[in-house]
């Protein structure tokens, strides 16, 4: 991060932004839940922001505020951005959903884009990536690679996006290894390296030799590296610095094309409220290189699954699938509809424990 951007964000955070914006520039704001240097979720959103700057050069001005707590504080930050003349604001965490809707009501001329949520308005679009497609591939590799048959999973918050990931990984791990079990720990944070590392250590102590994470920092990778014979997957970003082991592959979010397209729509005046949910096929979800720590046949199988998902030939939630309580969810060959997936609040059959409500 450049000093100038630190200063920019610091002044913004303090509400002292100068507001000297040339009228002909399109101003795009980003609200981040973690620091841009988290090496994961927020880092990738910021790469998207930089891509917007690169694409439009002098015609745009971007601003961001990092480490914005979900809840009332985010509402204040968004309001400030809108008052400072932002034309388009991306709010990049699930917990910004209601604040985004509230602020959008007050600024009908400002366009808002909320990541991973489900509430829309005339000036609020939602966008998300089908991370669960990547989770299917992780599950397959994890199921093959585990020797203890215990796979640890660090959840952030019990929201549909995270639950989809757990279910998808579990279904595909079970497919290749019927004995596999998931241990799930909820960290109740998106970003807290010490806590994430603790959660990873606890899972490893309890026998997990694969740790999947749905939190934003690279701390679980470091904990797994320290522990030795454990494998992990990069989350949101490639986290390649932890390869070839513990990190054996990753899910990479690529927001750049979407951010560029939406910024262009605002410039052209063609922006409309939409709901975008793209996956591997559209390139919004990337699978990081599968390292040599994975046997060649497993790697080939994983890549084949990736191709099938990308082409639309296979959907990770294809029946027969039962819910945790044994009731039928999807009949043989039936594919889950997006509505159910978007609001997913149940585990599939075989997972233990209950989802915190």
């Amino acid at each position, binding site marked *: *991060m450049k*000093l100038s951007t*630190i200063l920019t964000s*610091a002044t913004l955070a303090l509400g002292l932004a100068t507001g000297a914006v040339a009228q002909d520039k399109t101003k795009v704001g980003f609200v981040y839940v*973690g*620091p*841009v*240097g*988290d*090496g994961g979720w927020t880092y990738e959103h910021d790469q998207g922001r930089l891509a917007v700057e690169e694409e439009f050069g002098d015609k745009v001005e971007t601003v961001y505020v990092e*480490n914005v707590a979900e809840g009332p504080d985010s509402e204040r930050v968004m309001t400030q951005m809108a008052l400072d003349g932002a034309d388009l604001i991306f709010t990049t965490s699930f917990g910004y959903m209601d604040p985004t809707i509230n602020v959008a009501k007050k600024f009908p001329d400002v366009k808002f884009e909320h990541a991973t949520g489900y509430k829309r308005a005339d000036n609020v679009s939602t966008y998300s990536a089908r991370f669960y497609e990547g989770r299917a591939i992780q599950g397959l590799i994890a199921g093959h690679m585990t020797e203890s048959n215990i796979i*640890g999973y660090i959840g952030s918050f*019990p929201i549909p996006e995270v639950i989809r990931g757990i279910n998808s990984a579990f279904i595909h791990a079970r497919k290749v290894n019927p004995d596999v079990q998931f*241990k*799930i*720990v*909820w960290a*109740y*944070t998106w*970003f*807290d*390296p*010490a*806590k994430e*590392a*603790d*959660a990873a*250590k*606890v*899972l490893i*102590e*309890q*026998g997990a030799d694969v740790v999947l994470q749905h939190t934003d*920092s*690279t*701390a679980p*990778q*470091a*904990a797994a*590296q*320290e522990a030795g014979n454990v494998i992990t997957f990069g989350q949101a970003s490639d*986290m390649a*610095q*932890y390869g070839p082991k513990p990190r054996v592959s990753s899910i990479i979010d690529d927001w750049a094309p979407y951010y560029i397209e939406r910024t262009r729509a605002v410039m052209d005046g063609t922006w409309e409220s939409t709901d975008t949910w793209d996956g591997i096929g559209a390139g919004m979800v990337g699978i990081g290189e599968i390292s040599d720590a994975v046997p060649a046949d497993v790697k080939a199988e994983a890549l084949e699954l990736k191709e099938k998902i990308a082409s639309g030939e296979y959907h990770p939630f294809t029946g027969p699938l039962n819910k945790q309580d044994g009731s039928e969810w999807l009949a043989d060959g039936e594919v889950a509809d997006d509505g159910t997936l978007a609001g997913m609040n149940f585990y599939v059959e075989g997972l*233990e*424990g*209950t989802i*915190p*409500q």
Partner: protein
Amino acid sequence: MDLSAINPLLFVAGFLVAATPLIFAAIGELVAEKSGVLNLGVEGMMITGAICGFATAVETGSPLLGFAAAAAGGAALSLLFAFLTQVTLANQVASGLALTLFGLGLSALLGQGYVGVKPPRLGDIDFGPLADIPVIGPILFTHDIILYLGIALVAGVWVLLRFTRAGLILRAVGESHNAAHALGYKVRRIRTLAIVFGGACAGLGGAYISLIRVPQWTEGMTAGVGWIALALVVFASWKPWRLLLGAYLFGGITQLQLNLQGAGVAIPVEYLAMSPYLITILVLVILSADKSAAPASLGRNFHASG
């Protein structure tokens, strides 16, 4: 539910590690507050120590040098606070908050080249046969030297405050700076020393996170430990042993709730997740029923004319 999955030895050893950054930060702040200075910049000094320690350890290959640099980094940042509050007599609360913001930004800047780097490992002390004692050995005698230093520091501060003249003077300055001044003690100098000690301790605590507990560098990685340390000092009624107990309680319950989750215990996870805060506060509030009060001059600036 499968409680047998929890290994009690690893669990206890784990929470000793988890509590150590908190102990360092809190004991340093305790000394500063005993001298009458409220430094809200603990978080900023911790994160600065975390990156100074991390960078030095990576560059020199020596974790111990890293910890020394962390203490120096935290102390250097605290000197800024000392200058603001003791020389220019700026408001302590505002200066402390500014120090936290500054420390977070500075550490992000310093840490640019260190994301994803693996630091050298600080080995555990070899206690020889002691480590082979059943139960006690693996819990108590399998740690690195810094963890023991943290406990020694708590004991040292207790002795200093309770039994030594220096401790008496420090407390006098914190209780009534005018009286201490009238007796000829250099109030501002003593307070500056206490602030610097607090800064060095916070720096060590931060480096314990970046070099041992996680071990890696990530921006903002202290994620609020400094604020918990500040609260802990108050709830421990400015008493070193109570502070140690509170830190272990907090660390222990945090680890326990993660362990219980992993083992699939059927307690709602939300309650588990908030239990460390609740139980620590509850226990320390009950303990502090003896009406121990804050240092009387806490947060008040001193000028010889006053």
